[in-house]
């Protein structure tokens, strides 16, 4: 087990966004963090990273980390691919990648193998890229460095179907060597990648188990996620 979250609670601007989220992330494979819009999936990731103040307990690789500075956690191998990509629009692709280098020998071979397009577009400003290309930059930024856990927030949001497949293939490959905590609305992607699943509802954990058990049960899928198991997103 690489990450253990217990009774995580977050208040922001007077609203109680997380009210006791508890779950574990296995040391291998993909754990999908699921739930309807606004149940606190993104807030959970940001609380783990120390971007929002939280109470409760978060253990990363056996040590409590709540309250540690974000950059220190990331240097310890906890990498983050945020929602909406968050590439630096005014910087070139090469500069976006150079900024993310944390080690003396960043793995540009892997990045260029997975995303050959980024090599050709190195001098282009990231703000002028398409959504799919920006997502590649965002994922490439974390793959340059050795990581021990990836937090990936809605990597396929707003992307064309062909690009979704591309992103899923990359994540599948990445998950072979690094555990991933994945927030994802596209159930086809979840079905393809996830070994375990956690479902949040109104700031609480309501289900945890094998992903196949959840997705194999159409009734549970519908009642917990509010979608038919075949629907991509709502």
């Amino acid at each position, binding site marked *: 087990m690489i990450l253990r979250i217990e009774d995580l609670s977050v208040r922001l601007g007077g609203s109680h966004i997380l009210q006791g989220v508890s779950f574990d992330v296995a040391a291998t494979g993909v754990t999908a963090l699921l739930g309807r819009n606004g149940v606190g999936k993104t807030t959970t990731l940001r609380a783990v990273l120390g*971007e929002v103040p939280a109470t409760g307990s978060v253990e990363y690789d056996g040590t409590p980390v709540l309250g540690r*500075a974000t*950059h220190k956690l990331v240097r310890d191998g906890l990498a983050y691919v945020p929602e909406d990509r968050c590439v*630096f629009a*005014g910087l070139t692709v090469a500069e976006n990648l150079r*900024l*993310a280098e*944390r080690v003396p020998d960043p793995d540009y071979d892997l990045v260029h193998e997975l995303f050959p397009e980024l090599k050709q577009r190195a001098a282009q400003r990231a703000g002028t890229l398409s959504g799919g290309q920006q997502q590649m930059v965002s994922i490439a930024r974390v793959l340059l460095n050795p990581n021990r856990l990836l937090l990936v927030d809605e990597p396929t949001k707003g992307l064309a179907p062909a690009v979704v497949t591309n992103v899923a293939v990359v994540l599948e490959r990445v998950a072979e060597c690094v555990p991933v905590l994945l927030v994802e609305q596209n159930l086809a992607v979840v079905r393809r990648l996830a070994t375990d699943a956690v479902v949040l509802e109104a700031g609480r954990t309501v289900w945890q188990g094998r992903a196949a058990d959840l997705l194999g049960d159409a009734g549970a899928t519908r009642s917990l996620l509010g979608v038919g198991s075949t629907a991509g997103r709502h």
Partner: protein
Amino acid sequence: MSTVVLLTLTGLGLAALYFLIASGLSLVFGLAGVLNFAHGLFLSIGAYVTWSVVGSWGLLPAILLGVAAAAATGALVELVLIRPLYTRHTEQVLVTVGLSLAGVALLQSVWGADARVFPRPAWASEVIGIAGAQVPADRFLLIGAAVVVLLGLLAFLRYTRYGLIIRAGVENRAMVSALGIDVRNAFTLVFAIGGALAGLAGILGGMYFSAISPGQGASLLIFAFIVVVIGGLGSVAGAAGAAVAVGLLQQFVNYYGTAGAGDVSVVVLLAAVLLLRPTGLAGKVATA
């Protein structure tokens, strides 16, 4: 024609001062989100330190010491006063307001409230004939210094790792942290750079006006604020463009209009820019 040349070069000289003050303010605001009212204090410290050692050290070492003292003050203010209030922006502004009040009073108690005559190199007092105009050489000193600083800053931002971190941090500070970078070191750095540039502006301003006084920083600061907002918060190139626009407008309107009309026209320009482009000329969102 000769009047236009003289006015243009004088306006550009003024623009140079505004740029030196505004570029640091703009970086500090763009990266750290701090509206720094104590920036005028950095300016005065640079000027006064240079003034007090110039007799024994000579001009160039005195200037270097003045700039270094202003840079150190900037870094110290960030480390001691700003950093403990991380993310509490209103309190940070309030602290710089208190510092600007207390700092000017402190300078007054050390060096007196009256203006002091400031030394300048002999050649800066000469006049140079250009296109029929007799232009005082100090204008070129100001313009030259500002151009060197502008090119140096742009090169720093473009080609160094810290420059990269600052440019990225102006866009999205949280994401820089999420890449494993301690962005607070960059805060200290921009405060030091802003302090150094303001100190340089204080020294050059002292040479230009031939005098320094404790309140000088505050009066230049307001126009520097206007330059920052027009140029777009966080943009060095925007600050340069806005400084030129403000300096020229102020000089020309003051000459051809009534006294004080130039200052008023600058504020009208600010209002017009904000109404037409709330993000400032360089497009960075100005509504923090």
